């Protein structure tokens, strides 16, 4: 805010006050009326000018100034010495401040009416505020009417109009409805506002609801003729007039408090953790909904601070501010858009941190890709094993069986003797070959795992183990990639135990916990297993490829416990 704008504001306030004092001297207006009226108008106009000067992008300043001028004109014209000109100009001005007031409240804080309903309502309010005085200016009630509106000595006066009173009542009813509509629109704005906006909006909204309510009450008093209320209502009107600048001040102050200075941002960014720049910016700019998008030139996409791809588009409810050249973008509450200077300052302060953040996001995106490709490779390997197992079964095994069957036919046709013995030998060899083939196929991919599930497959493994194995597993089926990984964990662990552990007993448990399959293989052997050995390392890789966890607990002398936790999602 420049000191000039303060000075202009103060000067205008003084001028307005002085004019009112001079004019009221003519009219013998009471001191209290004078002080209140003058204060309201003077304060409003200067506040408007100050806002106008300090935030030229916002139309708020214009609206506040216009509102104050209208109020001043309406009051001042009323103070002019009785004249037909004064009445003709003054009467239409009486309600104009109320209309500008409604316009201003609904347009806060940008000064623009975004919503179509708001725009239509403001249009109707202006029209009503200007038109209501027309019948009063052109005519008067028939003479002899006691509680009628007194005739106005206007330049436009034509003569007596019969239904003048009815027209006035109609306008009063319309004002009640418009007042109610205004209150509804204010409430609707508060309800729809983003948290950041709501914080700055509520003082004004409170004042506006109060203003709307007293306007409705005034119109109702006109309509039903509660003359005794007029004095009270006049005071309420003034109070609501004063409430607005106060509310605006509160709004500006809370906005200031919510938006910490950019200097704090610089300090904060010095200690920020990777991924924390968004939070720091959100705090500085006072917009908890703020999103940070980082541009990855290599991929030509926007990603968030975790490396996930996001869309950056401007919508009526979200504004976008670009930072640097192809570096980052802030997606924020459109309310912030009029604070371009703050946004730019915050953006430049965050630049270095954002470069850093982008590197992190890029790294994370690459890491995610790497993880996904690792999972794909493991799954492709599993699929390949399954195919190989089927090929062995459908190809080699069937042919060997065919040979065996042929040998049966041969033996039936060969007389006992050397030839028959040779055939029997061949048969024996063949059966060995078939058995080896069967074991090979099982090692590549056990069919029982697919057909009967993990529990059965582990039981079969346990039966083949030279060391007694206790198995505790329910029959629940798990996703096939989880079953395969768990199976190979158990198979490898059992092989390790048989070779190295010198164990007397093994316990295997498979259970499901929080959406993960947990496989635990615990032996009572000598412990001290090397978790970086190729076998265990391979298992760890396999489990981690599925975003699982793998651990080996093996204190020397107290057995080994291998645990794999594999998410089933």
């Amino acid at each position, binding site marked *: 805010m420049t000191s000039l704008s303060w000075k202009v504001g103060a000067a205008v306030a003084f001028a307005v006050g002085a004019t009112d004092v001079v004019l009221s001297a003519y009219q013998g207006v009471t001191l209290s009326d004078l002080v209140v009226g003058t204060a309201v108008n003077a304060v409003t106009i200067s506040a408007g000018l100050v806002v106008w000067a300090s935030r030229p992008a916002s139309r708020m300043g214009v609206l506040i100034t216009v509102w104050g001028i209208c109020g001043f004109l309406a009051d001042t014209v009323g103070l002019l010495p009785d004249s037909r000109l004064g009445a003709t100009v003054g009467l239409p001005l009486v309600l104009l401040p109320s209309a500008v007031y409604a316009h201003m409240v609904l347009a806060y804080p940008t000064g623009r009416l975004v919503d179509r309903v708001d725009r239509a309502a403001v249009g109707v309010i202006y029209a009503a505020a200007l038109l209501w005085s027309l019948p009063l200016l052109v005519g008067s009630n028939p003479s002899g009417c006691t509680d009628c509106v007194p005739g106005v000595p206007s330049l436009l006066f034509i003569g007596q109009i019969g239904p003048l009173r009815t027209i006035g009542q109609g306008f009063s009813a319309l004002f009640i409805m418009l007042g109610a509509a205004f209150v509804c629109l204010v409430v609707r704005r508060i309800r729809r506002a983003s948290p950041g906006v709501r914080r700055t909006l509520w003082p004004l909204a409170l004042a506006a609801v109060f203003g709307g309510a007293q306007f409705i009450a005034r119109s109702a008093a006109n309509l039903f003729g509660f003359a005794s209320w007029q004095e009270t209502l006049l005071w309420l009107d003034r109070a609501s007039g004063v409430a607005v600048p106060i509310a605006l001040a509160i709004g500006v102050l809370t906005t200031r408090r919510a938006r910490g200075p950019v200097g704090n941002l610089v300090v904060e960014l010095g200690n920020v953790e990777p991924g924390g720049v968004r939070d720091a910016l959100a705090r500085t700019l006072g917009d908890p909904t703020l999103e940070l998008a980082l541009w990855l030139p290599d991929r030509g996409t926007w990603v968030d601070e975790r490396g996930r791809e996001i869309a950056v588009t401007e919508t009526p409810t979200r504004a976008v501010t670009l930072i640097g050249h192809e570096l980052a973008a802030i997606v924020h509450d459109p309310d912030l858009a009029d604070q371009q200077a703050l946004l730019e300052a915050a953006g430049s302060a965050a630049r270095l941190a954002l470069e850093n953040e982008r590197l992190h996001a890029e790294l994370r995106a690459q890491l995610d890709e790497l993880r996904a490709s690792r999972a794909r490779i493991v799954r492709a390997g599993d699929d390949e094993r399954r195919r190989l197992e089927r090929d062995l079964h459908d190809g080699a095994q*069937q042919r060997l069986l065919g040979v065996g069957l042929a040998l049966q036919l041969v033996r039936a046709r060969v007389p006992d003797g050397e030839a028959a013995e040779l055939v029997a030998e061949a048969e024996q060899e063949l059966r060995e070959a078939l058995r080896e083939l*069967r074991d090979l196929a099982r090692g590549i991919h056990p*069919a029982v795992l697919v057909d009967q599930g993990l529990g059965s497959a582990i*039981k079969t493994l346990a*039966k083949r183990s030279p060391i007694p194995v206790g198995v505790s597993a329910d029959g629940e089926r798990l996703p096939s990639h989880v079953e395969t990984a768990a199976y190979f964990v158990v198979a490898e662990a059992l092989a390790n135990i048989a070779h190295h552990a010198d164990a007397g007993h093994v316990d295997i448990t498979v259970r499901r916990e929080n959406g993960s399959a947990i496989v635990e293989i615990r032996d009572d052997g000598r412990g001290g297993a090397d978790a970086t050995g190729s076998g265990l390392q391979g298992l760890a890789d396999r489990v981690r490829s599925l975003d699982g966890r793998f651990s080996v607990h093996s204190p020397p002398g107290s057995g080994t416990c291998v645990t794999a936790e594999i998410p089933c999602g």
Partner: protein
Amino acid sequence: MRVAIADDSVIVREGLARVLADRDVDVRGLAADAGQLLALVDAERPDVAIVDIRMPPTHTDEGLVAADLIRERFPDVGVLVLSQYTDAAYALRLLDGDEKGRGYLLKERITAVDELADALERIHAGECVIEPELIRALLANPARSDRLAALTPRERDVLALLAEGLTDRGIGERLWLSQSTVETHVRHILQKLDLPTGAAHNRRVHAVLTYLDR
């Protein structure tokens, strides 16, 4: 004896048909999948249907499914499932419900036609036949040895044959024992293993296999 053969491999089903025909077994027809087999059984009513466990379309356990359907629709037809798996879980699935006239053998048994013919005879006679290698694997399991420690060596021999599905008489013939001696052994074994005696005689193979697989 009349048999029907279902195997998706031409080499195996044609070869098996020839070998069996060589042994004067009446092969009534060949099928390449479970659907064809059911139609064949319906038309020919063989004594025993020989079924490969893996057949199209999924190549997993079609043979077991077909065995159940045959048992349901044609209770008089025995079923011999040929498998490459020594997992007890498959055999137990086959015996589920009723074990009479059902057999589970490793596929390579077809290269020992005497054993195959013997198994077919037993199934035709309403016995149950379980792959000896599967039983051997179960009994060799070290985790089981504690629980079987109470059995005498003789009783263990009897237990193995019992699990293979032999009748008391069949066991007696193999071990050169009188039927009443076998019966005594069997009663002792079942008592020691805490298995139900007597009543469920036609479920005893299932009970013993379940016990050994535990």
